[in-house]
């Protein structure tokens, strides 16, 4: 197939692809995203290919590795079309049975289907699984239908139709107006309206302009950008070309974090394929519009996600932020107007152009339109990526989709917005998610990380964790960020170690205020957020650490002790065998005792003591009872055994 010279040629090529495809012919889709590959997806794909070949089905059944469908914890995920039967946690050894039962005999292998832990019922189709049922997947939905290495798959689903429409039927100004009308706010952090940012660049005097994809995804705990980059790179590329057309840029950049090698590879491939078909390069689809794209790898610095730092890094320098006297959209990369948007923002653009701004604004709240992808992780039953309409409540996301907190634990807080965000407590669970709603609650949308914490998570430790992260990642240019965060980290660490003093909270508040007021970039300005929000909602935990030397969540190592309850210990010896510090003394029929001086508080004994005994307990703030005297340590046999 040669270059596509017109929008009509693209359409007829699409029809040709579709005509070659029989929607009813069987196809096995296996998620080849990073999460599933870590769980063995590559072996499963190879096993399917081998088995299908061996059974002589190669001519009728196709196999494909797709993008991430989001339910990563249950991976490898396999979906069998046309019935859309969804199997979870599939291993290579399950493959012969799936081929024999499902592909040949059209029978469902029940054991591999999702089982609802509440009802015990099996869900055969993806859409029947509660995790997917309440989601609205407009951006993520194609991941599972596409082999990201094949542009034909994207075209078959209507890919590049938005580009054809824009170049063929709309002026560049009309594209901009549509994006403005959609009211889409940036998905990467602060939620700045994309249309307004674009307009600023378009109107800037300098004729050479750039459009840039922020694919740095520095937020720990967030991986939606990764899933899109790996699973559907063309959707981002198409959005970027549309952006270039709207603002008058002829050059675009992907800034991708180096930790995502598969994403880098897939984007390179997508660019090559798009160039091959004339969807990228010179005179795109015969429109006269030229656009080229360059991929740039990051090198592992969180601050490089910040817009000015990212552009400095793109120029080949150390990625340090600069003051924003003039906005980047007017004076950015090489001092030229540059539009920087997040991966998910770009991926929404083709949908907006294709379906119209009114379609986009029909979903969401007054001030936050469309859907948002969240990465729902931490202490939650169903972990993975979820895409929901803006305005859904945290409770719906965490309980209806996420399945609540595992192991009968109590919900404590959900952390949103990454290191710049905050923790939202239980009494605010009915909050609707939206940019302004989250900010009002003392947190942020950020890029969409949602880390769920249960009663075992210490909120002081969480604050310490984020400050430690940001202290490490500060570029060090300004004093309140570099020195202030370091001091905050020192004080918080002391508190978690039981060395907190009266006045520490006030001092932390003062340092926080200074960092917010006086830092140059948003890293320093927002760094105190996790501390401020945990203090606001969980002040009693700070006080317990400082005043009573007690960690209420029983999490801070220096403030807890492990103790074996003599009435419950059966002398089974499991803890003694696994204790890495040889701190446990015991024998058969002897009550076990922990030597507190030797114990490193690793928690292994607590974890391995069989649940039916649960004899290891954690103590904090209370003295450890004296060990049982030697003569009382023998465990007397139960009467039952005698008789």
């Amino acid at each position, binding site marked *: 197939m040669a270059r596509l010279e017109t929008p009509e040629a693209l359409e007829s090529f699409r029809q040709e692809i579709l005509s070659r495809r029989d929607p009813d012919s069987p196809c096995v889709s296996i998620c080849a995203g*990073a*999460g599933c*590959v*870590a*769980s063995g997806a590559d072996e499963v794909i190879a096993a399917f290919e081998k088995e299908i070949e061996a059974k002589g089905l190669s001519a009728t059944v196709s196999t494909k590795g797709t993008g991430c469908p989001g339910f*990563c*914890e249950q*991976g490898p995920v396999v979906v069998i079309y046309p019935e859309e039967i969804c199997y979870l946690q599939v291993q290579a050894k399950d493959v012969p049975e799936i081929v024999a039962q499902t592909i040949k005999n059209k029978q469902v292998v029940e054991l591999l289907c999702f089982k609802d832990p509440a009802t015990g019922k099996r869900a055969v189709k993806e859409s029947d699984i509660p995790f997917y049922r309440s989601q609205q997947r407009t951006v993520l939905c194609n991941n599972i239908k596409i082999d990201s290495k094949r542009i034909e798959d994207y075209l078959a689903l209507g890919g590049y139709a938005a580009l054809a429409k824009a170049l063929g039927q709309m002026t560049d100004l009309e594209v901009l107006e549509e994006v403005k009308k959609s009211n889409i706010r940036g998905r990467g952090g602060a939620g700045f309206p994309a249309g307004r940012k674009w307009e600023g660049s378009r109107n800037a005097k300098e004729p050479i302009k750039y459009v840039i994809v922020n694919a740095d*995804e*520095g*937020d*720990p*705990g*967030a*991986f939606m950008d*990764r*899933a899109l980059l790996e699973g559907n790179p063309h959707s981002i590329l198409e959005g970027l070309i549309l952006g270039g057309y709207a603002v008058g840029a002829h050059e675009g950049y992907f800034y991708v974090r*180096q*930790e*995502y*090698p598969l994403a880098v590879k897939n984007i390179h491939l997508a660019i090559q394929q798009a160039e091959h078909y004339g969807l990228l390069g010179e005179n795109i689809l015969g429109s006269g519009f030229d656009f080229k794209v360059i991929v*740039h*790898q*990051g*090198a*592992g*610095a*969180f601050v490089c996600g910040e817009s000015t730092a990212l552009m400095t*890094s793109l*120029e*080949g*320098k*150390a*990625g*340090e932020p600069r003051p924003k006297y003039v906005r980047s959209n007017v004076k950015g990369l090489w001092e030229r107007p540059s539009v920087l948007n997040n991966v998910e923002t770009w991926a929404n653009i083709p949908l907006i152009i294709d379906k119209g701004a009114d379609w986009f604004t029909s979903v969401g709240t007054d001030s936050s339109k469309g859907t948002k992808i969240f*990465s729902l*992780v*931490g*202490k939650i039953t169903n*972990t*993975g990526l979820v895409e929901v309409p803006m305005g859904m409540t945290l409770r719906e996301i965490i309980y209806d989709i996420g399945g609540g907190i595992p192991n009968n634990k109590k919900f404590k807080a959900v*952390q949103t917005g*990454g290191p710049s965000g905050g923790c939202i407590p239980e009494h605010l669970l009915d909050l609707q998610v939206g940019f302004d709603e989250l900010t009002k609650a003392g947190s942020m949308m950020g890029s969409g*990380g949602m*880390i769920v*914490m249960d009663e075992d*998570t210490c909120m002081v430790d*969480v604050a310490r*964790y*984020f400050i430690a*992260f940001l202290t490490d*990642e500060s*570029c060090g240019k300004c004093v309140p960020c570099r020195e202030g965060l370091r001091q905050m980290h020192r004080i918080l660490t002391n508190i978690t170690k039981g060395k907190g003093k009266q006045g520490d909270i006030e001092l932390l508040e003062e340092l926080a205020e200074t960092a917010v007021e006086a830092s140059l970039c948003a890293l320093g300005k927002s760094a105190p957020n996790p501390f401020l929000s945990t203090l606001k909602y969980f002040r009693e935990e700070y006080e317990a650490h400082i005043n009573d030397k007690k960690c209420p969540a029983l999490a801070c190592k220096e403030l807890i002790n492990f103790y074996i309850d003599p009435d419950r210990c059966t002398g089974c010896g499991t803890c003694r065998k*696994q204790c*890495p510090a040889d701190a446990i003394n015991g024998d058969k029929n002897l009550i076990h005792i922990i030597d507190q001086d030797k114990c490193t508080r*690793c*928690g*292994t004994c607590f*974890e391995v003591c069989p649940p039916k005994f649960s004899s290891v307990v954690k103590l904090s703030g209370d003295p450890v009872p004296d060990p049982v005297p030697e003569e009382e340590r023998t465990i007397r046999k139960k009467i039952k055994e005698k008789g």
Partner: protein
Amino acid sequence: MEIESAPAGAMPGIKLSSNANELLRSVDQIIEKHHGEASNLLQIMLDIQSENNWLSKQALARVSEKLSVPMTRIQHIATFYKAFSLVPKGRHKVHICVGTACHVRGATRILDTVEEATGIKPGETDLDLKFSLETVNCLGCCALGPVMEVDGKVHGKMSPVKASKALKTYE
């Protein structure tokens, strides 16, 4: 900052250009691939790092000379970004994710265990050059947390016991 040069031959298993010419040739090739443009400095350094496992003084000097970029700027970059190492790395690169999702699921305990098993702290390489240990802030596999990555392979749902077992399988 001191940049050590590694004694040739003392590095079992490391792809170290034993003769300087070979190293320089590979550096030149990488520079050529990036059209010898100074704006590609970061990408060039990343490529050298991934080819040789670390950035040696000779390699950096060559880059400085070929791109006409001052050595101070190169050193600034090499120390600013986490991906770069100015000392040789071990045969196996162990990354422990300490991102938020992994943290709340007990990443600290995994790190403690690995430190104990390897005898090194993050940022260090052991004397046999078997393991280099680093922490990372999220590998994007949060659903499988806590996560440990060895030579690019992700090991998910780690426990201290599983982590130390996994390390034993590396030679």
